């Protein structure tokens, strides 16, 4: 927390920036850091730009070339992730040995969690598709086609990473007319084919609309190369959720019965009804000395009717 750091922020903007970075119960949308390697081909450079468009505004493109090798030395990526507060990254490079190389990865607590290297094949950029694009910040629908995504452990990890990368902002409610984008990942012959479509909702006979798709782009295939996946302990730690405080239910009390009344049941215990003292007898409250006078005679109880009798006597 900002209040747990020795250096206090001097401006409100600084305070807000620090508050944004601190650990939270409900986290911010994951930002993606897009890095260009030492050498990039036109295709992979363009692919990275399209990825940036897809991930905007939760993406940051680094301007300069960074001749690093993520699989050898990840410290640069970790450093940049800490600097810019991004937990996803995409690294694009091109070499003879690894043409059109794309490394997608994610970090936990600014340390590498997992990363997968793909070779991008059959790439067609966003601009080549003459379909109108979706607004920035749209939450896409995701579709995974292929049995391997549920059986093969590597592909399961890849699916998890792709989900994390493309899920978009976390929302509580979604506007049904706003379901405008579908990203389809299909596994075919060692390649993951990525296609992105624009959803058009047409009226059908029933309440549920008829879906029509038009390919919006970009279009590419990802061929799996190397990967560095998280160990089970790492992924377990990364998935640890905070204990969300639940409202403790008080037994026996109904806070509101709908009319603003608070109801509860009072348990009294077993009562012997014939032995209950219901009437308050004032006579029983008098001290006992009244009954026995000093001379041992019983004192006569005075009643109101005695006054009448006395009067009558007089």
């Amino acid at each position, binding site marked *: 927390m900002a209040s747990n750091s020795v250096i206090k922020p001097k401006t409100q903007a600084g305070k807000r920036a620090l508050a944004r970075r601190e650990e*939270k119960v409900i986290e911010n949308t994951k930002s993606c850091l897009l890095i260009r390697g030492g050498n990039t081909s036109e295709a992979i450079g363009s692919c990275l730009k399209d990825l940036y468009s897809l991930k905007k505004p939760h993406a940051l493109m680094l301007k300069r070339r960074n001749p690093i090798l993520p699989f050898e030395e990840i410290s640069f990526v970790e450093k940049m992730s800490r600097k810019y507060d991004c937990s996803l990254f995409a690294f694009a490079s091109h070499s003879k040995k690894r043409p059109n190389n794309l490394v997608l990865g994610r970090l936990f607590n600014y340390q590498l969690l997992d990363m997968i290297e793909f070779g991008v094949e059959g790439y067609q950029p966003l601009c080549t598709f003459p379909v109108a694009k979706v607004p920035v910040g749209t939450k896409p629908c995701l579709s*995974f086609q292929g049995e391997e995504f549920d059986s093969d452990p590597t592909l399961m990890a890849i699916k998890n990473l792709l989900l994390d990368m493309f899920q978009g902002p976390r929302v509580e409610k979604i506007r049904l007319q706003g379901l405008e984008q579908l990203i389809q990942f299909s596994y075919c012959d060692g390649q993951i084919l990525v296609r992105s479509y624009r959803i058009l909702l047409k009226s059908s006979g029933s309440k549920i609309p008829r879906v029509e798709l038009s390919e919006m782009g970009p279009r590419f295939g990802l061929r799996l190369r190397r990967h560095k996946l998280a160990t089970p302990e790492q992924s377990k730690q990364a998935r640890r959720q905070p204990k969300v405080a639940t409202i403790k239910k008080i037994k026996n009390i109904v806070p509101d019965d709908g009319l603003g009344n608070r109801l509860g049941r009072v348990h009294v215990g077993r009562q012997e009804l014939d032995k209950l003292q219901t009437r308050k007898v004032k006579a029983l409250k008098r001290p006992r000395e009244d009954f026995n006078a000093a001379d041992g005679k019983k004192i006569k109880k005075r009643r109101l009717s005695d006054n009448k009798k006395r009067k009558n006597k007089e």
Partner: protein
Amino acid sequence: LATSVPPTFDLGLLLINNPNPLDPASTRGPELEPYLAAVARENAQSLLSEIWQRLPAERVEDAVVAPLPPPSTPLPREKPPPKPKPPSRWEEFARLKSIRRNKKEQAVWDEATGEWRPRWGYGRADPSKEWLLEVPASADPNEDQFGRLKKEKKERVAKNELQRLKNISRNMRLGGTLPALSAGGGGATSSSKELKRALVVAKRSDASVGQFSAKVGGEKVGHLQGRRRHFLPNTGSLTAERGIQEQVLKELAARRTDPLNTERAVNRLQQQREQSGDAANAVDGRRRPQKKKTAGKVSTEGGKSRRQNARDSKSRKYKKAAASGRANQKMKSLMKSKTLGKRK
């Protein structure tokens, strides 16, 4: 498109998982893209049908909205969940005394100007900006009142800062975020003393394969502070040692309030007689060497009494310690004369 396995959904992520493989014949050549588009359309239709059916639609102003359930696919977090902050000293005190925070209003009546002023921020009645200050009756007439106010404010700010830093250091200590500096035990080193000691130990213990690392110019290694335990030599004056032992016994004897508990003594005697099974065993409270049991005699399972066993084990321990002590002494003398490394 024959769908043999029905798809599964994760509506929190707007996800559809279709575990059916792609038709290999359709994925070759120019038919690939239309085939993929058809597959995608089917998937999208299934997903949207699911959304329309499962999620209750609400109307918010001019849009139809559906609440999304939390995602069922486990995705890793960005950062670890926040640790609960331990309460500060004031918070703890307030909790015990049940002092509650009173929310202060922003506007305060200012007598001097005769208007409502904000309590903080722009336009507040700042006492440090006063142009006129009354000299209180108790103060020295030559004292600088403006300077006094400034000084007091500085002191208050410094005190607050100190308290804040103390709270932070306590949080760190209790939260244990400092890395363990000692090799033995991973516990958090709590005080500055422990940290200093750990540092000195780390600086001293830098030998590898018997060679201590060379000192970098001007580096001070520091002494290991702490009480040195002194042991008397094992050899030497016997009378001195006897005197010490007698002194110890005297002190112990002086502490005992009841020197002899006859009941206890009798019980002990009984117990020992039962255990040893030898009436000839003389027990008068003093240590006696155990008689050897001959083959013919009846002896119980635990031949020695418990007390005797305990005493014997202790004596064994002391003998061992003494022996090792002598060995240690020898090693120490050896070490002093000749070292393996060049430690000065």
